[in-house]
């Protein structure tokens, strides 16, 4: 079992996401994370899906995705050199004083941004690979995380290659 990152180009049409989500639940494929957004082509969107499974399982996932008419291209970039990023917004308890200073120090080590400061809380924004975000979350837990919002992963190939040009 291995984590796979799929970069999926789709028609920018109503209902595409429910077709993809429906397919995953129907066939018993588990989605670890999913992120949708526009992309460089005007009428297309890109869905980045993280799935866990063995290679045979992934082969089925890809083939079944490819069968959807509105899906233009499915690329498994797991074995290609790529960078993946997630973003998290973390609202953490931070009474003025020493804890607040500590949290700000942790934030700077993780290169997290402080995007809101309240009288009793701070909101941090952090991007990175999931391990980094997990580590930050673990460190902040001691202060009390009031709310945590995380995106799905987005990923891109390194170098000049693009998913659209990959065969």
């Amino acid at each position, binding site marked *: 079992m291995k984590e796979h990152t799929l970069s999926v180009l*789709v*028609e920018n049409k*109503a*209902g595409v996401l*429910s*077709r993809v989500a*429906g397919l995953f639940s*129907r066939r018993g494929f588990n989605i670890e994370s999913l992120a949708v957004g526009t992309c460089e082509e005007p009428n297309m969107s890109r869905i980045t899906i993280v799935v866990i499974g063995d290679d*045979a399982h992934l*082969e*089925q996932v890809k*083939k*079944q995705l*490819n*069968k*959807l*008419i*509105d*899906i*233009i*291209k499915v690329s498994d970039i797991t074995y290609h050199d790529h960078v993946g990023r997630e973003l998290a917004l973390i609202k953490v308890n931070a009474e003025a004083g020493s804890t607040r200073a500590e949290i700000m120090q942790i934030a700077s080590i993780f290169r997290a941004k402080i995007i809101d400061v309240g009288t009793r809380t701070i909101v941090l924004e952090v991007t990175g690979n999931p391990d980094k975000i997990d580590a930050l979350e673990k460190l902040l837990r001691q202060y009390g995380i009031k709310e945590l919002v995380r995106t799905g992963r987005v990923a891109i190939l390194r170098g000049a290659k693009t998913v659209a040009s990959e065969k």
Partner: protein
Amino acid sequence: MKTGARILIESLQREGVNTIFGYPGGSVLPIYDELYDSSIQHVLVRHEQAAVHAADGFARASGKTGVCLATSGPGACNLVTGLATAYMDSIPVVAITGQVPTSMLGNDAFQESDITGITLPVTKHNYLVKDASDISRVVKEAFYIAGTGRKGPVLIDLPKDVNTSQLSVQEEEPGPVVLRGYQPTYRGHARQIEKAIGLLRKADRPVIYAGGGVIESEASCELLELAERFGLPVTTTLMGLGCIPCDHTLNLGMLGMHGTEYANYAITECDLLLAIGVRFDDRVTGRIETFAPHAKIIHIDIDPAEIGKNKPVMIPIVGDAKAVLGDMLHQLEKREQKGPWLDRIRTWKEKHPLKYRDDGLLHPQYIIQELSSLLDGNGIIVSEVGQNQMWTAQYYCFKEPRTWLTSGGLGTMGYGLPAAMGAQVACPEKTVFDIAGDGSIQMNIQEFGTIAQYNIPVKVAILNNMYLGMVRQWQELFYDRRYSSTELPSIEFVKIAQAYGIEGMRVDSASDVRPALEAAIAHDGPYVLDFRIEREENVFPMVPAGAAINEMIGGHQQ
């Protein structure tokens, strides 16, 4: 100025549609109004499920795409089972549904149902059209998607205001279909084909395992040519019956759960399996680990997702069966037939033929054999689901593709009568039989009304055992004869037929079978035969669920 409904009808005509099976209602009134004086024939069914099965039967018998029409809400929902049936068997159907006006979508308006949502998993694709200017393009795409690649049903949902809205633009023919995400592969990969041929040359005990894909791709001639030129025995799935003539020496009949013993033995012993247009379904393979355990497998299929899905394959060939087999034939010279292997198969065939008790009682297998000899390959046989389906598959001698229509993948009781109706409309000159059980026929028996009204001369042969026979058989074999909710009361089907204005005959003895069948065939119009068969007759041989396919019960040792 043209209405959306008018554009729809013109678009259908451009696709060559001459028959629609449907049922009206509020949201499709504009479409029915256009149908009123159009050249398209509309067949009014008695339940929307029958409309989609009829479109499916029309498609299977003719090779064209079948079309059905239903109103929003309940009408659309009644299509679901039929769409799922067509989807599982890869049959090209276009279903058109009415929908509430776009302004009311999502409001739980009267007779609203999210039919594109509901049918997502049972259609190849579907559309909710929100602008009349999209209709002609969508119809063209729908037919293209339904009838190419791995075929399947496509649904088009049309809100009422889209049908009534007036379009001022001069409606032009839509341009060629452009679907970036849909480019089926027809030609097989040359290197893969070469490798497959290499394996075929070396094999000592080769077998072809052919399915519905061969029928849908019209590849039967190529299949036969390949089999003959290379001396390859052929076994077919339930869906593939007819792709090789049943009386051909190389034919092994059907394989799998109720397959012939010799087909299952051949699969178990073969060293090369050439699988064409098949899915390695569990009803075929039995315990998958013991299916073709000694074989190298070549799998030809137009759907890449089927290759390697259930069983690892040595040589995958993605492509259309007709195109791939054609390419193979170009490269294959005639070869010496593998004598010892074919001898072995001949011995199995002689030692383990299909058989049933010959005691003069009314056995269903005898009815099927008699019908087979009377029609001599010239009819179209449709079945319901259950024992009736399996006896027909085993004992009817199919000689050509598209003469056997059955719900294989979904196993839908109630499929037969409406599908037979559709097949008969597609092929008016042929004798069409629905082989039914007394349970299944009652699932869409209201269609007696349709065949009577339009004088569609379908013959219905009910193998009446006053049981849900196939379920009863499982209860007998695996549940200690505890017949829980499988007994049915005696129904006088002839009287029901008569109430609809259809003639019929009840048959209680074996000696009356042939004359009764002859009377039905000779009758100018629909006809119903109620055969009172041996009640606890079983379908044998049988591979119990989860067993290896060479572990059959009720075979020759019976």
